[in-house]
């Protein structure tokens, strides 16, 4: 999970700032979307409520209009009873002209036969089988029919039937008003302006009349169309709201259906959803535009900021690089506080570095000076310390040669002791000097053939009478990288020692060998000489340390100290194994690669 995130999380500043902006924008967009959904829903429910109100009002108009018509019919009926048939017919004709929505008025006897009608040809027709007739005969004061074949006039009309009764409630006759559904709608909607489409459904849910406001372009519901929602409203007796589509039209409409209880009809109002939501959609567009503009600007700003930060970082980095290259420059301080701090820290560090390097240089200077002094010292030791020794030895010798008779035996012996010690001191000075010279020498590395080196040293030692080649065995050795002069000195010292300390044996044996290991080459010089006590092995490589007396084996105790120093200079190690009278092996290990 973390890995996945890491892979997607950009590893550069610009990318991270952009990601940060995006991360901030996402909740903003989500919030905006939820606000928009809320608006949409609110708008929708408000509009549905409006539709309900419009439908209810429309239903109310319809109810009132038809009630009024029924009341008027009552009055007409009372009047008709007083008139002879000729004048009565004239009245019906004139009344039909006064009511634009009414096509005709008729007078029906209690048996259902039309006696008089403003419509021609209706006279004598029986309406006894009609539901509205039965209802009125059954006792209803008035009623309104569904769309039907009226028998009094054309098809698909609505009839408002009014019973006319005597004082003791005996049905004297019926007045029928034949209403043209289309005209009914037009009459009722005239007070309404704007809005959507209003519709009246009869008790079967069929469209009686559907009209639209003056500015409305959406189609009205087709005549006699049986509306599903209207049926639901009729069945439940409650208002119904929802989204509906007309048959054959792929447009969502917000629709409300409200039952007109008094008539057993339903009033409806509907508006196309798109039209209703147009302001919300416009808002959404503006909001989206605004959000994208803000996002774009923020991203732009982030890029700008990233560039400014990157530039500042680059300034610090270049300054640091310049410092690293050894320039005495300082990093210029960027105006971003943290980077400014960083740059200042850098400068501080550079300051400290300068101070440190100055003090280092000073130390190096001091070291150089003291080295020079040491050199001057060893030079004067070499020169001046030996001169008096030479004088002592030379004149002691002169005394021994020229005045031997006057010295006597003891005097001569004393002088010889003086000479021995003088010469020993000369030897000590020489060894000390060569030890210090080795220390000062800068090693010059090259590949050394150790076999050849050992053979050359053996020849040299043999020439000086220190070695016997019959006692020597040189095993095959790996070559090594080192300073030839130094390594030669070290091997020479070890071999010389080996011959020296095995010289008292009947059959001296000296072996020189070496082997290659992973990181280093190990070399050894082994003899079967007097050996040494391992208790003192830590003293072996110290200056002027000797495990034997001068009488047994001459020497100054510098040889192994030189070996130690040479090996140290090569980054190697040196050690020894041995036992008293059982010979000794001196090892030194040199790294295979010189740094």
């Amino acid at each position, binding site marked *: 999970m973390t890995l996945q995130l890491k892979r997607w999380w950009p590893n550069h500043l610009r990318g991270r700032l952009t990601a940060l902006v995006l991360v901030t924008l996402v909740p903003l967009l989500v919030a905006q979307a939820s606000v928009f959904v809320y608006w949409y829903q609110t708008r929708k429910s408000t509009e549905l409520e409006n539709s309900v109100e419009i439908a209810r009002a429309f239903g109310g108009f319809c109810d009132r209009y038809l009630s009024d018509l029924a009341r008027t019919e009552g009055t007409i009926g009372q009047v008709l009873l007083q008139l002879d048939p000729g004048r009565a017919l004239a009245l019906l004709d004139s009344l039909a002209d006064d009511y634009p929505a009414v096509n005709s008025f008729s007078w029906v006897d209690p048996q259902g036969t039309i006696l008089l009608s403003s419509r021609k040809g209706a006279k004598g027709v029986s309406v006894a089988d009609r539901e509205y007739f039965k209802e009125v005969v059954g006792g209803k004061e008035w009623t309104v029919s569904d769309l039907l074949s009226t028998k009094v006039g054309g098809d698909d009309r609505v009839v408002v039937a009014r019973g006319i009764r005597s004082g003791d409630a005996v049905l004297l006759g019926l007045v029928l008003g034949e209403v043209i559904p289309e005209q009914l709608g037009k009459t009722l909607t005239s007070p309404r302006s704007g809005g959507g489409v209003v519709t009246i459904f009869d008790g079967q849910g069929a469209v009686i009349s559907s009209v639209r406001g003056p500015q409305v372009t959406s189609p009205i519901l087709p005549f006699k169309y049986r509306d599903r929602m209207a049926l639901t409203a009729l069945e439940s007796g409650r208002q119904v709201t929802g989204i509906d589509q007309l048959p054959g039209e792929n447009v969502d409409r917000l629709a409300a259906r409200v039952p007109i209880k008094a008539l057993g009809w339903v009033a409806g109002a509907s508006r196309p959803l798109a039209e209703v939501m147009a302001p919300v959609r416009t808002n959404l567009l503006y909001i989206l535009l605004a959000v994208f503009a803000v996002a774009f600007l923020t991203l732009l700003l982030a890029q700008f900021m990233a560039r400014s930060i990157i530039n500042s970082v680059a300034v610090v980095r270049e300054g640091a690089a310049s410092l690293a290259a050894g320039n005495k420059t300082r990093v210029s301080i960027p105006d971003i506080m943290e980077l400014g701090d960083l740059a200042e820290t850098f400068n501080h560090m550079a300051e400290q570095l300068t101070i440190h390097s100055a003090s280092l240089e000073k130390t190096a200077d001091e070291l150089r000076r003291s080295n020079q002094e040491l050199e001057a010292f060893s*030079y004067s030791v*070499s*020169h001046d310390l030996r001169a008096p020794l*030479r004088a002592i*030895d030379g004149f002691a010798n*002169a005394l021994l040669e020229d005045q031997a008779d006057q010295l006597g035996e003891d005097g001569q012996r004393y002088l010889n002791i003086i000479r021995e010690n003088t*010469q020993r001191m000369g030897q000590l000075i020489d060894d000390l000097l060569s030890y210090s010279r080795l220390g000062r020498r800068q090693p010059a590395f090259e590949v050394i053939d150790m076999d050849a080196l050992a053979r050359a040293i053996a020849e040299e030692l043999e020439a000086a009478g220190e070695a016997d080649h019959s006692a020597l065995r040189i095993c095959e050795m790996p070559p090594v990288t080192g300073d030839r002069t130094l390594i030669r000195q070290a091997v020479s010292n070890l071999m010389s020692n080996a011959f020296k300390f095995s010289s008292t044996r009947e059959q001296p044996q000296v072996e020189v060998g070496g082997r290659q290991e992973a990181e280093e080459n190990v070399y050894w010089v082994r003899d079967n000489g007097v050996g040494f006590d391992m208790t003192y092995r830590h003293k072996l490589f110290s200056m002027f340390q000797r495990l034997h007396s001068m009488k047994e084996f001459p020497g100054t105790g510098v040889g192994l100290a030189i070996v130690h120093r040479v090996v140290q200079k090569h980054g190697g190690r040196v050690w020894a194994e041995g036992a008293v009278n059982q010979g000794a092996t001196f090892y030194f290990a040199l790294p295979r690669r010189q740094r």
Partner: protein
Amino acid sequence: MTNEVEILLVEDNPNDVELAMRALKKNNLANRVFIVKDGAEALDFIFGRGTHQNRRVENVPRVILLDLKLPKVDGIEVLRSIRSDERTKYIPVVVLTSSSEERDIVETYKLGVNSYIVKPVNFEKFIDVVRELGYYWLLLNHRPAV
């Protein structure tokens, strides 16, 4: 020709002078040795200047035994002057010194020294050295005529 100086010994330490003379005598080489006590006098003698202005430069010594650490003008300077003059550049010069410093050896060899000998502390060895020096430079060695 018989008065010609065979060995010029340049040495400031009187003890060393005496010991050198003793060693030369023991090898029968002390007959025509001339001793100078510092570098300046050595140059005066070699080039016939100052107190030695009556000396002819062309009468060059057979060999010069030169110490390096000398008052006034040091041995290396003396050697440089000898080698940079046409008349004296072929005189065999043997540095006879206490110093076994590598840089002295290198410096004198660069200037064309003929031998570099570290005076041994042991007097017997010194006698040996002087003997070999004498035999080689006075008897065996041939050099170009100036």
